[in-house]
């Protein structure tokens, strides 16, 4: 018989343990599929590590990969804090990117110091508005937001494809379904020559800082946390729960929209329908690894990005399928969930005691 006893006051150092244990466990478990695919296990780990941290160039690649994950990770963690289950960051990313190219590819011409804030604002409004739909369906009509946000991802992707094959198609794009390129003024500059790391990373870090301050120091942050802890208690305490959900939805969607802006304006320069290889869904893993903390999101994004970039290089060197990265990411989500138990509970192995018959709660 195993018993869980809740732990009181968990030290902050101890609460760092689950994500670290989870990350390591997921990487170790990845040895099984690597070996099954006929790869040399230790050499594979070597390739992953070198592929992620081995040179200035790959480090830049790693941080470029982490940038959208910081945004989507923040988006998910803010929403999950209030127990608003936003699994729609993928769709919000795409509408954010769509808004950025709609404004930034020639429709408006202004100097960079106006254009950049403009496309950022547009992307955030687009993402936030998209998330407003499931949020209102939840607060007004009681429709489960998990399902609606998930389903909207598919709708948005089709909408983006439609725009890219129709009204927003680049006439100079050789027939490819892609948007017109962003103007120079609407492009986030690269930080170093010949490297893909761009100023989107700085925006991501600033966003993390803002969210950190908001959650810790502001009334909004307090209301969000209270709503997430216990909705009915929050209601009794006079917290405007409905408007808190709406605020959270707007912030969360806006952050995910920013991920899209940063990808088109910082990396790609134009929009295609395959700009995100699931950054929105990976954001859920990032947020859970981070324990929903904004600082943790930055660290977790770097870890996940390292797994992707490292696995890509390992895959090229050894011929093991690069889906191994998705496998490690999925495993780390499951592992962090399990290892969080060790922080929340003391686990006692004891002989079964006779449990008194349960009488209360008959219905």
């Amino acid at each position, binding site marked *: 018989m195993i018993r869980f006893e809740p732990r009181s006051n968990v030290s902050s150092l101890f609460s760092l343990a689950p994500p670290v244990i989870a990350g390591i466990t997921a990487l170790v478990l990845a040895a099984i599929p690597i070996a099954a695919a006929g790869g040399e296990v230790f050499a594979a780990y070597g390739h992953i590590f070198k592929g992620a941290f081995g040179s200035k160039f790959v480090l830049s690649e790693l941080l470029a990969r982490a940038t959208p994950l910081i945004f989507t990770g923040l988006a998910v963690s803010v929403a999950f804090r209030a127990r608003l289950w936003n699994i729609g960051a993928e769709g919000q990313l795409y509408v954010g990117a769509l808004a950025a190219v709609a404004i930034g590819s020639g429709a408006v011409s202004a100097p960079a110091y106006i254009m950049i804030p403009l496309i950022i604002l547009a992307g955030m409004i687009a993402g936030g508005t998209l998330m407003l739909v499931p949020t209102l369906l939840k607060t007004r009509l009681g429709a489960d937001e998990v*399902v609606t946000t998930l389903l909207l991802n598919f709708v948005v992707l089709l909408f983006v494809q439609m725009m890219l094959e129709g009204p927003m198609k680049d006439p100079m794009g050789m027939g490819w379904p892609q948007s017109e390129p962003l103007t120079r003024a609407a492009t986030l500059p690269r930080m170093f020559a010949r490297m893909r790391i761009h100023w989107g990373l700085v925006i991501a870090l600033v966003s993390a800082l803002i969210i950190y301050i908001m959650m810790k120091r502001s009334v909004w942050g307090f209301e969000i946390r209270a709503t997430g802890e216990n909705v009915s208690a929050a209601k009794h305490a006079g917290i405007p729960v409905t408007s808190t959900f709406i605020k959270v939805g707007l912030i969360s969607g806006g952050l995910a929209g920013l991920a899209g802006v940063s990808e088109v304006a910082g990396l790609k320069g134009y929009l295609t329908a395959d700009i995100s290889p699931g950054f929105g869904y990976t954001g859920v893993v990032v947020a859970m690894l981070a324990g929903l903390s904004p600082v943790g999101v930055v660290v977790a994004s770097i870890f996940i990005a390292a797994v992707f970039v490292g696995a890509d290089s390992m895959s090229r060197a050894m011929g093991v399928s690069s889906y191994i990265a998705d496998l490690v*990411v999925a495993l780390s989500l499951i592992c962090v969930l399990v290892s969080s*138990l060790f922080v929340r509970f003391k686990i006692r192995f004891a002989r079964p005691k006779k449990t008194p018959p349960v009488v209360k709660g008959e219905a």
Partner: protein
Amino acid sequence: MEYIDILLSANFWAAAIRIATPLIFGVLGALVCERAGVLNLGIEGIFVVGAMCGWMAVWLGAGLWGGVLIAALAGAFFGLLHGILTVPLGLSQHVSGLGITMFATSVSYFAYRTALPDVSSPPRIEAFQPLDIPVLSELPFIGPALFQQTPMTFLALALVLLVSYMLYRTPLGLAIRAVGDNPSAVEAQGLPVFALRIGAIMAGSALMALGGAFLTMSAFDAFFFGMINGRGWICIALVVFASWRPGKALLGALLFGAFDAFQIRLQNEVGAVIPSQVFLMIPYLLSIVALVLVARKADYPRALLQPYFRGQR
């Protein structure tokens, strides 16, 4: 009046039933899990696993029904994992389910890529063929509409009856429904809450995997990346629409199949004017509408999403 022509063609109804089949499996599976009090968002990934395992088993020479069995077992395995995480460990059903979806999907893709490193066109198998039932298949209109389906469609229909009978007419069904409504009462009866819940999740997940297997073994004859395309999530919406009843689940899936088949035919008629993506959005929007329509009065199993710890209340 080409719209009426569409509705009057046997071909249309046959397509509606064909489109509904994987959803029937999926909705039944989700229904069994949720009736026992556990939301299974692993469904999308379990569809992928079922599609991949069923197809690969046949491709390796297991025979069609062997493939069906292996798909179901693979689904049950991921159901067991979800069950352990959410029932005795009491972890978040939302997050665990998403984890199962990611895990199941990536394992399937990894296994497929490892077995078939570079193939330009996916290898095909000899898939299930439509049955030719002696008298029934030759009936005018009704024959081609209803009775020229593959065996898996008939399996899906039989499972609706079976699940319905099990849930409402057997002690096991009563226990499963009770464990999703009031687990402490079940405990007081001396029945094992954990075993009932985990068992229901495994059975439900096996059903979901069959939905995936139908796609690679009946609807198509090969496995593609991204072929599930949100069907699992649609099932989660349809379960609410069906208010957790097998009969209504069948009706919901068929209604959905009819809409989808109609939309495909409509696309052929007016496809030149309206972009194809508008039509492709319809299934997802329809699911959202279905969910919203019933959300307010939905009669959720009362212990859904609530982990149960022994002797807690």
